[in-house]
């Protein structure tokens, strides 16, 4: 039957080629789309987790905290060794976020000051990526501060100038003067205008002695999102080791809005690809339907010779599947070639600034899951079957004598 279907689709070569190209294009489009979604997913993941880690440890109920006292882990020094003992292969950073009024000589700005204590490797990567001038405050530096370029311009300060911070703390309001030791440059203008970095001891000294807002756990430097199941296992292990006073969250849980955007990209893509398949399917319906009409006499003969309705319908479905299958194979080949190229790294020419602003690295790497390939091919298969239903029903209902007398 497949041989017959294959030969029949080439009886109207140009019409069949049109349908094959349409299906092939949509398959290619679907694969490339999912590849780009994978790139965006990995890109946003890298951008986020390079700074914030894949797992975070917070005080329980930190989300509902109305003041800094309720938002921090007070016994940070005791907690850190327990984290390191539970997950020894993980790099641990600590951060304390302090809402402050930061003032230069003439201007002030409310910002979220961040005191950080990072392992050396992370610190070097951060500096290499974002330090534009000067240096980062040293790990035990109680005096130095690094500002985002936008914030430095707003406060009209530069390296060597003094800034003043006023902050509500766990022990009352704190105030301190810092020397600007470095200027950072972030692609995201909002981040550039609001970042102020201290050493963790300096931030603790200002607002919350001995406390941290969170521990950030970095599980290697990876270009793609690790398996959620692996992260959840690590999370559960750490949670049970640390007890109920703190909460361990994966990056998805810590940044739910970003995770939701990522999770929405796939269904949205499925809807769009589905619509494209509907359009391609209409072309396949047209091709198959015309073919059935033109071959009405032939179907009449086949029925007269003893083919049952089901057999005739399967013949039509087989032709539709042959069309869509050929298109799917072509689309798959082109899609794989395109993705092979894009997986080596690509940029959106002229849109580098925009992609950086939305949180993507400058170079993205296309990636597609096997399930996504199966989904796209499944769409093509479903298109083949659905497009054939109406023509197949028409062919199956033919009466042999009427069909053999048919004149197109």
């Amino acid at each position, binding site marked *: 039957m497949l041989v017959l279907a294959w030969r029949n689709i080439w009886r109207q070569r140009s019409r069949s080629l049109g349908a094959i190209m349409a299906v092939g294009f949509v398959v290619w489009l679907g694969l490339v789309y999912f590849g780009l979604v994978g790139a965006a997913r990995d890109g946003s993941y890298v951008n986020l987790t390079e700074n914030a880690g894949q797992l975070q440890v917070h005080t329980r109920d930190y989300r509902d905290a109305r003041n800094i006292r309720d938002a921090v882990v007070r016994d940070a020094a005791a907690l850190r060794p327990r984290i390191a003992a539970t997950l020894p292969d993980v790099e641990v950073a600590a951060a304390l976020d302090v809402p402050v009024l930061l003032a230069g000589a003439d201007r002030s700005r409310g910002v979220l000051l961040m005191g950080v204590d990072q392992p050396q490797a992370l610190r070097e990567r951060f500096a290499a990526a974002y330090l534009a001038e000067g240096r980062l405050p040293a790990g035990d530096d109680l005096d130095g501060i690094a500002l985002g370029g936008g914030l430095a311009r707003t406060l009209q300060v530069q390296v060597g100038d003094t800034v003043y911070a006023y902050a509500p703390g766990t022990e009352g309001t704190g105030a301190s003067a810092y020397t600007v030791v470095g200027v950072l440059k972030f692609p995201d203008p909002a981040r550039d205008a609001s970042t102020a970095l201290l050493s963790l001891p300096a931030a603790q000294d200002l607002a919350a002695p001995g406390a941290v807002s969170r521990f950030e756990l970095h599980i290697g430097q990876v270009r793609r999102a690790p398996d959620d199941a692996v992260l959840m296992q690590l999370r559960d292990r750490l949670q049970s080791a640390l007890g109920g006073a703190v909460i361990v969250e994966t990056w998805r849980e810590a940044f739910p809005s970003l995770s939701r955007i990522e999770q929405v990209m796939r269904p949205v893509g499925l809807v769009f690809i589905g619509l494209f398949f509907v359009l391609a399917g209409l072309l396949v319906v047209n091709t198959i339907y015309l073919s059935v009409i033109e071959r009405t006499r032939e179907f009449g003969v086949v029925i007269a*010779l003893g083919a049952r309705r089901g057999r005739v319908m399967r013949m039509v479905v087989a032709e539709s599947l042959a069309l869509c299958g050929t298109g799917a194979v072509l689309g798959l080949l082109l899609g794989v070639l395109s993705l092979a190229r894009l997986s080596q790294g690509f940029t959106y020419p002229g849109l580098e600034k925009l992609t950086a602003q939305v949180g993507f690295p400058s170079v993205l790497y296309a990636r597609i899951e096997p399930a996504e390939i199966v989904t796209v091919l499944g769409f093509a298969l479903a298109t083949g079957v659905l497009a054939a239903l109406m023509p197949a029903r028409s062919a199956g209902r033919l009466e042999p004598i009427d069909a053999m007398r048919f004149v197109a």
Partner: protein
Amino acid sequence: MDPLVTVRGLTKIYRVDGQQTPALRDVDLDITPGEFTAIAGPSGSGKSTLLHLIGGLDHPTAGEVWLQGQRIDRLDHNALAQLRLQNFGFVFQAYNLIPVFTVLENAAFVLELRGLPRQQREARARRALADLGIGALAARRPNQLSGGEQQRVAVARALAAEPKLILADEPTANLDGVTGLALIDEMRRLNREQGTTFVIATHDPRLLERVRRTVYLEDGRIAGA
């Protein structure tokens, strides 16, 4: 000998645009196994209609058609398809070969519908093609054959399935004199040597000279036998 086909009171009336046009009226007929029978008559006399009703290609308005004791005129679409597949071979005036198939594939097509394995069906199709002297054409496509050759392929297609009855509707109508006669002689030989039963609707006088029995139809009624 018990009849292979029994037809009783067979009537077919076509309704076109509200007009009733009788094609067959109250026809009785028996076909016994091994017959080589012609159904003759002028155009519009009901020859093809009778052939179609015997072959289960159409439903009668009234009357009965029996095949070896089984009443077939009330069977549904699929049951009739199965009946045709297992019992009848058809040869049509316009050959009606499948153009994308080779000669061999055309000859084996009914056996494919029956679900025979490829080797078996090709062996039987080759034998049928050889019987009709066109074994050498097995790899060709229908559009590479003459009319006579195509009609032989159609006979081979019917023959390969070893049906109880071959129904041929004006098989020589599109063939020149020599080719038509040759085809008739082939069918006679197959009837004689293999015992295949033929019922042939025709108004070709050359064919009528060569059959053992002729049933004359006129205005849908049997006018003589």
